[in-house]
């Protein structure tokens, strides 16, 4: 169980910085198309933002709600990843061969670009969720138990 932090400075700074961290995470995720960045790094930064909000506001606070909700989504990222791969297979190509991502009205180049973005989003979601769930399971194991056992 993580309680909220006492210091007003940490609380106020957290209120300002966490959205910035999240934005930066999204930026790194999408910038992976053109330069250094991508799903894993972006996911780590997004996860860090959520971990920060848990550490600063405590994990029952309304600001940490995203982190609590996100815990149920473990595997959703993998489903996105495998779903894109599966769409490529339905299109007749190999697993993750984005040239065969059958979306009407798209040129081959944009198909590849879109395919990579989607798989990277999948990776980012999974990495972020895993980072949050590690912190939660280190701090309070009954949360994990409850969330999985219903």
């Amino acid at each position, binding site marked *: 169980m993580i309680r909220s932090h006492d210091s007003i400075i940490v609380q106020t700074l957290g209120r300002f910085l966490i959205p910035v961290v999240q934005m930066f995470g999204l930026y790194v995720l999408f910038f992976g198309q053109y330069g250094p960045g991508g799903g894993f790094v972006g996911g780590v930064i997004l996860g860090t933002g959520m971990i920060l909000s848990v550490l600063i506001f405590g994990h029952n606070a309304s600001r940490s709600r995203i982190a609590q909700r996100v815990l*149920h*989504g*473990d*595997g*959703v990222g*993998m*489903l996105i990843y*495998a779903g894109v*791969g*599966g769409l*490529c*297979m339905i299109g007749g*190509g*190999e*697993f*993750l*061969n*984005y*040239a065969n991502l059958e979306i009407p009205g798209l040129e081959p180049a944009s198909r590849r670009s879109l395919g990579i973005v989607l798989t990277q989003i999948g990776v980012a979601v999974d990495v972020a969720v895993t980072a949050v769930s590690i912190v939660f399971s280190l701090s309070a194991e009954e949360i994990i138990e409850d*969330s*999985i*056992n*219903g």
Partner: protein
Amino acid sequence: MSHQLPVILFLLPLLAAISMPVVCLKHRHWSQPISTATLAAMVLVSILNLYNIVHHGEIRYVFSGWAAPLGIEWVADGLASIVLLLLSILGLLGVVFNKPIYPKALGGRIVHFHTLILLFISALTGITFAGDLFNLFVFLEVAAISSYALVGVAGGRALFAAFRYLILGTIGAALYLLGVSYLYAVTGTLNMADIASKLPMLLSSKALVGGLLFMFIGLGIKMALVPFHTWMPEAYTYAPESVSPILAPLITKVVLLAWVRIIYWVFDASIVIYDIPILKIVAVLGVLAAVIGSSLALAQRDIKMMFAYGGIAHIGIIIIGIGQGNQTGFVGGIFYLLNDAVMQAGLFYIAGVAFYLYGVRTIDDLWHIGKQAPWLTGSLIIMALGMIGLPPTGGFFGKWYIILGALEAGNYISVAAVVLSTLLTLAYFVKLFEGIFRQTSARSNIQFGEVPLAFKLTMGITSAAIIILGLFSAPIVQLLLDNALPPGL
């Protein structure tokens, strides 16, 4: 469409595993039918895949369309497809076996169990198909991590065994990775076929010897080869009753298969580095494992512990067959691998039923069962015939081909080791049956109720499979000879 079958085989259990925690969030009891259906579908697809590969040759699947040395490649050949069919059938039986047992064995962690089992099986599929040394490592780790978690899933005493398994398994994985990096430094590639084509001119390299050695020790820890076997009996003994029949036949055998792939497909079978014939050393280790494993099994009082040591001995026998470096020995080894997987599954079903229905763990308590549990005693007798290697069973033909192969290679120590291991196996089964049929004046206080259908099915199918593998050994060996031989043998 048919060229997609290998990746469909991998995706089926993986997708089921990752959607399991979400789907079963509200309805925990859905997990059992979901994983049963998934694995049944996997059995069907792997039959299709085997049929396709026997008739149309091997499939080289390149992920995302990048050709082999650059991209990641999967090789679905005859050997992989045969092992995969076995793997999916044993996975399905294991999940069926879990149905009546889980409230007691798993302590309520039913969703964890099914998620991990499906993840484990998809990782083993990846190991079987991997055509790339690093990809092999990744799947090795996924399989290993899910099996550590599976051993400890119910908590209690098993957690210590799981932790020990984790430490040793991680050392094994690290050594394997070190070996791969040595090979990568020498050859500049990770693709198995590509390495194989570059190796002949690099045989004087010291890094190559180091890499091979590290890879062998790493995989040796994972396959419980004798000096490195210490994690295995405890992990299998203290794992929950529904976990050990899935872990025991699969993980060590599939890792052994990965080693066979490296030694025969990446390196050449007749390879001699610095006057050291690699296969000879492998065969010597097999001799040690066969004799030491059987002797240790003879010393056990706990049934599951005894069967686990029996499995260690059988890894040795398979390695003796594979280490002979001729067709007869190789096919005998692979055939024995198939048999041994079925026998290990069957033995751990029996041990699970004995504990779950009758509360029997050790030989001293076996007299409680006596003649009153015909399903259990009957299938135990058939399993014993198979483990010892008496004629109508598949165990006999496997050992027969291995001995023929050893005689062909003039390796009389190997022949002696197989025979000695057989005698020791006979000895520990005599000890077991002496425990069952002992005459005592004491009256058993166990209630003999109805045996659940799932137990009858799993024990019956594995016992029948041992006999069927024996009766149809000729066509199966022919299938192996036609489809599963490595190049250059």
